[in-house]
C-alpha cells in the first residue's frame, strides 16, 4: 500500500496514454453528452446492455468506453446491472434464436419510458450473419429501435458521438 501511495505522490496524475488532440476530442464530445443528459434526463442516463449473439468485439468496446481514458460515467452514462434500473437498452449482435426470449424479457422488465439502441453492424440487420438459419433478423423488427450505432465494432469515441447526435 505504501508503495502505491508513494508512487502516486511522486508521479502525480499521469495521462500519458492519450495525445492532446485525442484528449480534446473526447472532452468535447463528452462535454456535449454531459450537457444533453443533464437537460433531458436531469442527472444521468442508465443503460442496460444485452448481448444477443455478439462476437465479443462490440462488448469489448463498450467496456473500453468505461475505462479511465473515455470514462463514460463522468459524462453521466451508467451501465446498469439490472434492466429495472435502466432508461435504455443497448443491444449488440445479430439476434440468435436462442436469445430472442431473453431479449424480450429484458425489455419487458424495463420501466417506462424506455428506448432501444442497437450497436454494431450485426445488430442492424444481422450483418454478416444475416442469412443464417439461426438468426432471427433485425432488432428493429422485434423492438422499437430509436438509434443505431454503426461499426464493426464501433470505437468508444463513435459510441459517445452517436449518443450526442441522438440526444440532440
Amino acid at each position: 500500500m505504501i508503495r502505491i501511495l508513494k508512487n502516486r505522490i511522486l508521479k502525480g496524475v499521469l495521462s500519458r496514454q492519450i495525445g492532446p488532440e485525442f484528449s480534446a476530442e473526447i472532452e468535447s464530445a463528452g462535454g456535449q453528452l454531459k450537457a444533453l443528459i443533464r437537460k433531458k434526463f436531469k442527472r444521468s442516463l442508465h443503460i442496460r446492455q444485452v448481448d444477443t449473439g455478439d462476437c465479443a468485439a462490440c462488448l469489448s468496446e463498450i467496456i473500453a468506453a468505461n475505462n479511465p481514458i473515455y470514462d463514460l460515467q463522468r459524462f453521466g452514462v451508467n451501465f446498469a446491472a439490472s434492466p429495472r434500473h435502466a432508461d435504455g437498452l443497448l443491444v449488440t449482435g445479430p439476434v440468435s434464436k436462442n436469445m430472442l426470449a431473453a431479449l424480450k424479457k429484458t425489455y419487458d422488465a424495463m420501466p417506462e419510458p424506455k428506448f432501444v439502441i442497437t450497436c454494431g453492424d450485426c445488430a442492424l440487420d444481422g450483418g454478416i450473419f444475416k442469412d443464417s438459419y439461426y438468426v432471427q433478423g433485425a432488432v428493429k423488427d422485434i423492438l422499437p429501435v430509436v438509434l443505431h450505432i454503426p461499426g464493426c465494432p464501433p470505437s468508444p469515441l463513435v459510441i459517445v458521438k452517436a449518443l450526442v447526435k441522438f440526444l440532440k
Partner: protein
Amino acid sequence: MDGAEIILRIKNKFPEFAAISVTRKYPDEVCIKIDPAIFKSTCLVLHKILPSPVMMLFALDQRAESGMFAINCVFVDFKNRQWVIVSMDIPLENPGFESLAKSIYSASLFEREIREMFGIEPKGNPDLRRLNLHDEVCPQGNFPLRKDFQKIQPGNLAEYKFARVEGEGIFEVPVGPVHAGIIGPGHFRFSAAGEPIINLESRLGFTHRGVEKLLEGKSWAQAIELSECVAGDSAFSHSIAFTQALEKIFGLTVDIQTNYTRAVCLELERMYNHANDIGGMATDVGFSFPAAFASVIKEAILQLNERISGSRYLKKVNRLGTTAVSWDENKKKHLLDSLKKIKRDFNELVDILNFSVSFMDRLDAAGVLRKKTAQDLGIVGLAARASGIPTDLRKYFPGVYKEAKFKMAIQESGDVLARYRIRISEFEESCRLIEELAGKIVDQENKIELKFKEGSGLGYAEGWRGPVLYWVKLGADGLIQRCKIVDPSFHNWQGLSYAVLGNIIPDFPLCNKSFDLSYPGNDL
C-alpha cells in the same frame, strides 16, 4: 515420412489394425482412412500413444459425392510435429458410430454436436442433450449441417433437462443468460449446500449463429471476413488458422516477412487480452484501482493495433498469403516505443497486484483444476499450461517462433493464481517476441501468385486462449463445402465446471475470469 511410422506404432498396440488408406497430403498432416468397425479401437490407441485428447471430431455430409456421411477425428502428435486425422465413412441407414465418450471424455461434446447437427447417433454416449440448438426454440429432427437442410421446420418443443443434485439442504442458483455485467450470454446453474458448489451446469449456445453452415457455399475471400467474426476477441487467431488451411490447400508458401507480421499481430492480440483478464481478476475480487490500470494498458495496446493495422481488433488485417499491414521505419519505431511504455506500466500493475496480500490470497488455491482432470477433459491452451500440461502450438509447430527462441510458460498448481501467473509470463514473453521479430521486419511489397486447387486441410494457430483449429474443404467450384471450427473455449468450458467444485459461489466470477472463455467461439 509417409505416415508409415505412425501406422507401425498403432499396430504395436493393436495388431488387428488395418487401414484402408494412409495419405500424407502435407508435411504436418497424416490422414488414416479406416473401417468403422475399428474406429473406436484406433482412436483409443492413438489417444494413449501420442498422447493427445480428441482435438477435433466432426462429420461431413458427402451424400452427394459418395452417398455416405464421413467422420473425421483429429489428434495432435507433438513429438513428431504432425496432426493425425482418422477418418471413416458412415452408411446412410441408421447413421451412427460407436461412441468414444466413455473412454475418451474429450470426444463427448463433439459427439453431441455431431448428433444435433447431422443426426448421426453416437451409440453409447450417455449424454445426448443438444448443445447449441435449444430445445425451447428448435424442434428435434432439424439437422442444420446436412446439405439438404433449408430452414428450421416446426415441431414439438421441449424443455432442457438440467442435471439435478437432490438432498436435504441443497439449493439451486440459476444465473443468466443475461448477466449483471457487460459480458456474453450463458446460463449457469449452481447446486450448492451451504457455501460450496457441489455441481455446476453450464448451458451455452445462446450466441449460436450457425457460422459453420454460413461458411458453406461462400467463396474463400468472403469467408475470411466471417472467420474474424467468430470470436471478436480472437479475430486474428481465427483468421490465421483459416487462411493457413487455405494456404495449405493452394500449396501457397507464405514468405517470411508475412510470418513475422502475423506473429507480431498474434502476440499483440495475446497481450491486450491478457491485460484485460488480469484486470478482470482484480475487478472480481473488488480491487478496482489495478483493474482500471489494466484497462488503460489494454486501451494502449488497442490503440497500438489501430496505428499498426488500422483496426483495434485486428479485423480485416490478415489476407491469403499476406497481410494488410505495411511497415515503415516510423511505424516500427512507434511499435517499439509504445511497447516499452506498455511494459513499464505492466510491470507496475503486476507489482501492485503481487504486493497486495489480500489479492494474492483470493487467487491462491481458488478454482483448482488438477492435472489429471485437465488431461481427462482434454483441456487445451493456457488453462492446460496452468495445470502443468506442456502444450503450446508455438513451441511444437514453431515457424518464426523458433528464430525468436520462444519459451513456453508453465505452472503446476492449476489454480487461479497459476493462470494469473501464466498470463503475466506470457505477456512478458509476447513483449520480448515482438521486439525480437519487429527487428527483422523490412518494408517490402509482397506479391502472391495464387493457383486455385480443391482439397482439404487443417489450419491452426495458438491464440491467446489456446489452439484455434480450422478444418476446411474446398470444392472444385472454389466454394467452401465444409468448415469445422474449434475454438479452445469448446474444450475448456468443461474445465471451468470442474475447477469451481468446492469453491464458494462468490468465487465463481473469479474462477470464470481466470479461464475467460469465449461464448461466441464456443457456440459458433
